[in-house]
């Protein structure tokens, strides 16, 4: 399966939307850099991301959450927080990495 990475704010760009529109059932999506805003609860895109969780596994990079002042309790239920080591493990566990730049 593919590990999709998204590093753009979903409020500024179409990367997350396009990624979710192409991610096959069972694949993984990792939000990094400004992409981590997509993991927050209570935003205009939360419903879209929550719905996607039925289909794909979603991860978010903890160091990028912390840098931006997003407490982990503000992250949508069902999204798993990982560190750089976890990012490495996700790359190893999936056969291909596809960056939505």
């Amino acid at each position: 399966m593919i590990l999709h990475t998204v590093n753009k704010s979903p409020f500024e760009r179409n990367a997350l939307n396009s990624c979710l529109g192409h991610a096959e059932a069972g694949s993984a999506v990792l939000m990094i850099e400004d992409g981590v805003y997509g993991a927050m609860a209570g935003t205009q895109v939360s419903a879209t991301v929550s719905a996607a969780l039925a289909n794909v596994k979603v991860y978010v990079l903890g160091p990028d959450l912390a840098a931006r002042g997003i407490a982990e309790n503000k992250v949508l239920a069902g999204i798993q927080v990982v560190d750089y080591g976890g990012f490495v493990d996700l790359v190893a566990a999936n056969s291909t990495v596809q960056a939505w730049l």
Partner: protein
Amino acid sequence: MSEGKIKQFLYLNRKAPYGTVYALESLEVVLIAAAFDQDVSLAFVDDGVYQLAKGQDTKAVEMKNFSPVYNALGDYGITKLYVEKESLDERGLTLDDLMNVIYEDENDDYAEKPSIRLVSRAEMAAMMETQDIVLSF
């Protein structure tokens, strides 16, 4: 340095911090601008509102945490930080999620006052129209 002209300078911040350098280097300009006796305003619109988020901790990304600088702006006479309510709403944020940026009002016995002015999109647009120079980053 200003040779007597006083202009309205607007610093327009529409991008999130850390993902790109614009927020940091915009602040660096604002700090220099303070020396020029111009009328300085900062606008935080769209993802720019994230720049003021509380609790930023950059240790694990190994970048410089520049968020404390916003609170020092008052000492430089920069006290007008316009934050757009619609931008906060879309992102599920309220003023409570932002840093409590304050300044001491030298015309009011150094009383502490909030630098952040929460405005509607319409008010933001009207404020923009009063500016002479807009620096975008």
